[in-house]
């Protein structure tokens, strides 16, 4: 960089305008570095750092593998993203699910399909009863709209099975 600033083209002129080339070079360097940062942001955006992408779509399972949650790790305030819950249980039985933690603080549930057999509030948040099919599989699709800002730690638990913990981040 030293020989670059020594080039006569880059010496400050006093006429017809007062120049400060040292400052101007800093401005140009800022523009240059800034350009790389913009491209970096674009690439991270494509990868899903700002929601919807490889980095954001996550899959969490309970230790025994019976409960699975597919969710977006990164959300944006005001936008909606899906969350899929799958439980494996005894065929044709009703499965109990506890949705708790900060999920209900940070998100509002816009849709819930299929409608649970029963629903009630619980100390931790919300308790649902789902109808399992002949293979013992029950699935619940939620659409979440990010209302809060920052980190939200949630957990979903099926009684008699281990729980799934996951963390989501909502951008402004």
């Amino acid at each position, binding site marked *: 960089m030293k020989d*670059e600033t020594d080039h006569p*083209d*880059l010496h400050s002129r006093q006429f017809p305008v007062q120049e400060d080339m040292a400052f101007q070079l800093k*401005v140009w360097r800022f523009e240059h570095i*800034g350009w790389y940062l913009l491209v970096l942001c674009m690439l991270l955006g494509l990868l899903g750092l700002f929601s919807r992408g490889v980095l954001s779509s996550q899959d969490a399972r309970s230790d025994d593998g019976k409960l699975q949650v597919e969710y977006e790790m990164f959300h944006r305030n005001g936008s909606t993203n899906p969350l899929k819950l799958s439980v494996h249980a005894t065929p044709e039985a009703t499965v109990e699910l506890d949705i708790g933690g900060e999920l209900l603080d940070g998100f509002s549930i816009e849709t819930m399909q299929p409608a649970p057999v029963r629903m009630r509030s619980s100390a931790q948040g919300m308790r649902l009863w789902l109808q399992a099919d002949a293979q013992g599989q029950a699935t619940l699709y939620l659409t979440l709209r990010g209302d809060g800002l920052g980190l939200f730690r949630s957990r979903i638990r099926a009684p008699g099975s281990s729980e799934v913990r996951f963390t989501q981040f909502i951008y402004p």
Partner: protein
Amino acid sequence: MDSVLRALAMYLALMVLFKIAGRRSLAELTTFDFVLLMIIGEATQQALLGDDFSLTNAFLVIITLIAIDVGFSLLKQRSSWISRLIDGEPTIIVENGKLLHRRLRHARLVEADVMEAARSSQGIETIEQIKFAIIERNGKISVIRQDPEGG
């Protein structure tokens, strides 16, 4: 509260982004630049207002934007350092008929840009007829003609 914060964040973010883009980027508006500017405006508008289309929100956002703008112009008046930081400085790119290539490269300009400005503002045909060409703070290129007896 959030409308003020939204406006503040958007103002600062746009200021930094357009600083990165450089003073030349939108100085000479081509048709495409104009369209680009409108798209940027469209994208900004959503983030500024959110899902609140009330008069109060619009007023708050506009008041904040104008207040910051006036605030910055007051700051610029007080301190030449801030003024330089925000508005930049003019830079000479042609001196006595000679292009300063290093500067052009940094400013992402080519000779054709300088000659275009020279033709449209001064009716100049060759680079030798230019005494000085200067990128002004607003990104426009101003051209000073060589004196006939001097050149």
